[in-house]
């Protein structure tokens, strides 16, 4: 038998070659895709509503599974006991996705991979909105806000800071100069030796051009064939900061906080606005947001109050719209601003207010780019409560959109529907 070989550990090699890196990356990409596909379920989970953006949340996702033909869950197995096993004893719980009894069973059946992945809310929101574009907001000429945008390369310069030195172009221009100088010398050699000598002198001065300022310049003359860089060779990338014209937009969130909005309805409404709010923050830099909550009276509230405070009382939808109209008239004139208004309510309006509400809605639709109304009717309550959807049917403005939200799974589709409406207009 040949001698056994022991190969020692080489740390350099171990650190250099991480061959699983590519496969791990691909796996993570697939997880991200999976989160994106199931985003509607994930955001329907209560836990993300109203949390701060940098908070890490655990998102349960089905792992990226590898499927094979396998036996079902209802098959018997064999285990080992401690010597006291009797028929009828319970040895484990069934239905744990294929896991047998005992904590560390030798695994003759594949389990279901169920991950909890840590993502920050911000990441999640990014994923959510990746394939969703908020409308190009209609441009209004005056008072556009300018937001600095990422720097952009704009051509090349001969001066610049060191870090923007373009080595490739620098070397290229040196080579060009070298060829030119050689051709010239050859031509000069043929005709006039004096010119040649002058060229040589010029070249020598060029050599010192770069090395002269440095104190540690080599004392010995460089080898004859060397053709050094000249200041003229240096090429720098030129970078400009672009100003992007942002549209001037204001989003008005109007929520019904009357007594008929029970916990479930409020939760659905808040979820919807939460999405809207996060979306706007993600996609636009200079957008102003106004929160209005109303019962029989409307008031402008802060973000925190809007998402967390409950109220009670009757419902005058018109009050919320009127407040919005007032605020628009006061601060966001429609000729200067793109106005987006969204209203969530359970539609249980006080009958006498309906005419006023419809009128105010008309006015709002006239001055807004988009006006949305979301009616929140948890399943079952829909049949005996009055609905604004019927009344708003009479409002046939192009930029008016109504949706019905019956359960938390509807939030994401209806959210998309709102935005789709706006896209159609474009």
């Amino acid at each position: 038998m040949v001698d056994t070989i022991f190969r020692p550990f080489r740390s350099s090699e171990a650190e250099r070659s991480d061959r699983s890196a590519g496969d791990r990356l691909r796996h993570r990409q697939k997880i991200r895709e999976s989160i994106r596909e199931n985003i509607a379920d994930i955001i329907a989970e209560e836990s993300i509503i109203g949390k701060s953006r940098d908070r890490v949340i655990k998102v349960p996702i089905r792992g990226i599974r590898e499927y094979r033909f396998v036996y079902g869950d209802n098959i018997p197995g064999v285990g080992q006991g401690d010597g006291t096993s009797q028929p009828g004893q319970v040895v484990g719980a069934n239905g744990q996705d294929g896991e047998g009894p005992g904590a560390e069973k030798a695994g003759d059946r594949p389990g279901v991979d169920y991950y909890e992945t840590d993502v920050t809310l911000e990441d999640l929101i990014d994923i959510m909105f990746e394939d969703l574009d908020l409308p190009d907001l209609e441009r209004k000429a005056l008072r556009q806000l300018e937001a600095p945008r990422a720097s952009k390369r704009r051509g090349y310069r001969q001066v610049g800071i060191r870090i923007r030195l373009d080595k490739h172009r620098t070397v290229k221009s040196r080579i060009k100069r070298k060829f030119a100088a050689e051709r010239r010398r050859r031509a000069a050699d043929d005709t006039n030796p004096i010119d040649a000598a002058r060229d040589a002198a010029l070249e020598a001065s060029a050599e010192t051009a770069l090395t002269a300022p440095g104190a540690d310049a080599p004392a010995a003359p460089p080898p004859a064939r060397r053709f050094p860089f000249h200041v003229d060779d240096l090429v720098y990338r030129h970078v400009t900061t672009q100003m992007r014209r942002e549209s001037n937009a204001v989003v008005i969130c109007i929520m019904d906080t009357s007594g008929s909005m029970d916990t479930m309805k409020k939760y659905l409404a808040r979820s919807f606005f939460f999405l809207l709010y996060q979306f706007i923050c993600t996609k636009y830099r200079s957008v102003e947001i106004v929160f209005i909550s109303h019962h029989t009276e409307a008031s402008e509230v802060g973000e925190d109050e809007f998402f967390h405070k409950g109220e009670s009382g009757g419902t005058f939808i018109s009050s919320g719209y009127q407040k919005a109209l007032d605020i628009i008239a006061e601060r966001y004139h429609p000729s200067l601003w793109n106005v987006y208004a969204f209203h969530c309510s359970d539609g249980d309006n006080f009958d006498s207010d309906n005419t006023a509400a419809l009128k105010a809605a008309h006015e709002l639709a006239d001055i807004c780019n988009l006006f949305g109304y979301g009616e929140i009717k948890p399943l079952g309550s829909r049949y005996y409560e009055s609905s604004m959807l019927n009344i708003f049917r009479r409002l046939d403005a192009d930029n008016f959109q109504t949706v019905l939200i019956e359960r938390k799974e509807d939030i994401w589709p209806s959210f998309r529907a709102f935005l789709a409406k706006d896209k159609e207009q474009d």
Partner: protein
Amino acid sequence: MASWSLDDLAYWDAKIRAQVDALGLDCYPQEFELCNHNDMLAYMAYSGIPSHYPHWSYGKSFEKLRTLYEYGLSGLPYEMVINSNPALAYLMRDNSLCLQVLTIAHVYGHNDFFKNNFTFKSTRAEFTIGTFKAHAERVRAYMEDPSIGADKVESILDAAHALSLQRRRNLAVKKLSPEEERRAMLRNAQAVHDPFKSIHRRPDYIEPDLQKVPLSPEPDILLFIRDHNPYLANWERDLLSIVDEEARYFIPQIETKIMNEGWASWVHREIMNAIELPQELHLEFLVRHNQVVRPTPGGINPYHLGLKVWTDLKRRFDEPTADELREHGTPAKTGMQKLLEVRETDRDQSFLRRFLTEELMREMDLFEYEPKGDDLVISKVADEHGWRAVKEQLIRSIGMGGIPVIRIEDADFGHKRTLYLTHDHDDRDLQLENGEKTLGYLYRLWGREVVLETVLAGKRTLLTFNDRGFSAKTLK
């Protein structure tokens, strides 16, 4: 750094090898490579193969192993051996000297098993490393080919991986060529010679259908698709071959898990007891050894079960009890001779069928459990009424027994090039979600409708996957 040097390892290795020879083991040349825990995780994720083709599932496996390891839910194996010639094994750099010595002895057990067990004969150990490397290079080349690209390669690999274990299991049985199969069919169709044919009614001659594809039910799904789907590109065919070849390489290890681990544990125990370890090493050895081979409550630890059966087998030949003498007579072989013979000729299913005795089962308190409502309930224990059933259940669930047998029946079902498969149902139903997805992969590779006939909840069912997606239909 650990408190040992390579010279220490070489010193103990020489002692161990003397014992290996004394036991009569027959090993490939052995190479050990020291690695850190990250390398070990990577080797585990890639089934030990140093150069494996890339696929995200290995990244997943790595992440899973690392998470389990980092949260302390599972330790790392002390070693990892590859069935190759020379045998390649990895040792964890941070382990103690005792663990290294134990591991080296254990590795020689695996090495001997790889070289001698009949299931490994077809794995061509001398080419293992080179083959995997060539596979990796080919897969990478396809991924880098601008006309193919990583996404298409991944899509084929995903599908092929799902079906890779749907292949013939017993590699010792020769696969007939179509010509041989045709001849065998004609031969079988001949009437058997009957000396009393004048008084017997002649059996009807059933003409064999030689036009059918496949001639007889075909378990090698990937290879069949490779050879019979005319619309596959060459690179797609090559990927199917690569995945199938890899599955063929690993099937012997699946089929001999209990024997192999039991054998290596038995070998290391014999060796460690024979090489006169200093006392402190010996005490640590006892602790470590028991950690490895202790039974898993409620489950089956292949190390424990294997070691038990090997130990008992040797005892029956060296020191038979009076009962055994009466029943089987005086053994003709020594225990060691018998062990060496069995490690060549058996795989887990035959090994347990032949050598797992009623007494042993009772000693280990093996039981069968069944799901009942939300609980798993013991249905049978290894008493005189139940032990046979428990043993049958065990044999059925180990090795490739855990993989449903599915064969291609007809590649042109209904003259529509529909692929018709049947599941060999043995009271174990298929898991439907997996079935659906895997059929989807099969459809992707076959390119036409695929139909799987199986039994669900006692009723014959057709699972179909075609351009309209998945459907299940119960037959009357």
